[in-house]
């Protein structure tokens, strides 16, 4: 079966971002960008399904600027067969991205779509669920285990009190949680081979999708800074401070 994986280019998770002085957003000029960590897990899961003989083709798709081709090449080096970039320079809302992905799903007809549970820049945790709603498919969000048998998929999900398993009819949407797998690294020969794999570039217009939004970001501020703390010398001093100064115990 065909598996579609969505990946996002985001600021690297190790970067401490800074808010722009004019409060229009965060400063992303000259900052290291990477594949969103949850998307890496999504690619890894698709590659493992292919290694098990369950998946026959892995198509990786990204919605973003032309530089997102780097992240698509990374996914190709990790084992994806071909890539699609829906090129759009501006930041889009999750709903707009879900609509674009729906158009790609209609075109490619995958049996399984794997996304990360959230992107570490916008922290929305919406796109997979929205894509499932638009396509009318079942959704297995926050997956820690995915097992395909026949025409259904059993997804073990991380929920607040523990774990839950649901069974979904294929085609279905799965979003990955951190513990689904440990993503591999791309080897140098595979990075070279990935340069020759096909990468198709589309636009929202070509897909006939409007990216208009009902949300507007008015401003972006730095969070309130915590006042500097103190170092205590002993456990006794710590307990004394907590009891008499902070009055929390």
């Amino acid at each position, binding site marked *: 079966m065909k598996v579609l994986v969505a990946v996002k280019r985001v600021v690297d998770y190790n970067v401490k971002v800074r808010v722009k002085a004019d409060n229009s957003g965060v400063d992303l000029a000259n900052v290291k960008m990477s594949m969103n960590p949850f998307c890496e897990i999504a690619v890894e899961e698709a590659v493992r399904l292919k290694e098990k003989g369950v998946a026959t083709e892995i198509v990786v798709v990204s919605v973003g600027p032309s530089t997102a081709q780097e992240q698509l090449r990374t996914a190709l080096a990790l084992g994806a067969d071909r890539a699609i970039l829906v090129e759009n320079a501006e930041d889009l809302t*999750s709903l707009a991205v879900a609509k674009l992905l729906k158009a790609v799903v209609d075109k490619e007809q995958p049996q399984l779509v794997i996304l990360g549970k959230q992107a570490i820049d916008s922290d929305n945790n919406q796109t997979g669920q929205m894509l499932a709603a638009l396509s009318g498919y079942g959704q297995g*969000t926050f997956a820690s285990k995915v097992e395909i048998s026949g025409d259904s998929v059993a997804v073990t999900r991380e929920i607040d009190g523990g774990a839950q398993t649901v069974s979904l009819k294929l085609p279905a949407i799965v979003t990955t949680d951190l513990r689904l797998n440990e993503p591999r690294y791309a080897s140098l020969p595979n990075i070279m081979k990935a340069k020759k794999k096909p990468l198709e570039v589309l636009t929202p217009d070509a897909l006939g999708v409007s990216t208009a939004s009902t949300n*507007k970001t008015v401003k972006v501020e730095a969070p309130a800074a915590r006042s500097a703390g103190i170092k205590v010398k002993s456990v006794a001093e710590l307990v004394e401070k907590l009891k008499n100064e902070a009055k929390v115990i």
Partner: protein
Amino acid sequence: MTILVIAEHDNKVLAPATLNTVAAAAKIGGDIHVLVAGQGAGAVAEAAAKVAGVAKVLVADNAAYAHQLPENVAPLVAELGKGYSHILAAATSNGKNILPRVAAALDVDQISEIISVESADTFKRPIYAGNAIATVQSSAAVKVITVRATGFDPVAAEGGSAAVEAVAAAHDAGISSFVGEELAKSDRPELTAAKIVVSGGRGMQNGDNFKHLYALADKLGAAVGASRAAVDAGFVPNDMQVGQTGKIVAPQLYIAVGISGAIQHLAGMKDSKVIVAINKDEEAPIFQVADYGLVADLFEAIPELEKLV
């Protein structure tokens, strides 16, 4: 303006996060209706009717809603929600699972994990793991929003007397089914609602050593959390994880033991009132956010702390 709040529950008990969500709804202003979708959730509906500020409770009782499967619950919420100005749910694993599906069905953008209400259409929410706060304005006819519980003080669970009304609508998409669940058992307070949280990290070395934290937590009436490193190493189950990808907590007192303080972890706890860090590495980033830091070996400090509190 009328606001629909989706009740968070397990068919038996109304979850406390619902009270924080009603508090956010009260800040927006207008009548507040609560939807209880489930199976045999009569007790939950009764509890919801007593919540201060709730005008009406809608009960959709159907086997299809028993396990909160989003394929069945989301069409119900979207259908009922059309008549409301706002649809709110707690940013729990259930709320996050269901609400984006509702928003897409209504063809509107969603606003996730708001921490404050600026006006009826403008809200604040953290982005980049809490390293920036965005103010977002929505022009949608129905505003679909998840609420971060720690951003709002809960309303009183008693004092209201809302009318309870049954909703007949049944949606069963027939594309998903519940197989089973495995819930972690604990007698300690729930992590996201606890006044005091004691968390352990990689420095705990193994799962067995968490017994020191449990002993301290029991003395303080605290919940026990963990960093991702401790969860990934298999010391404790993943529902104990505090951070961007785990739970968001904001207790009165957060004690971080053997936790370095990665950005990912800080995103889940830096709104705590008082933060204490116990770590033997005095360069650990956790000391930059800690109100009180103690550079010490945790295996000596924790038993001593337990004796003194």
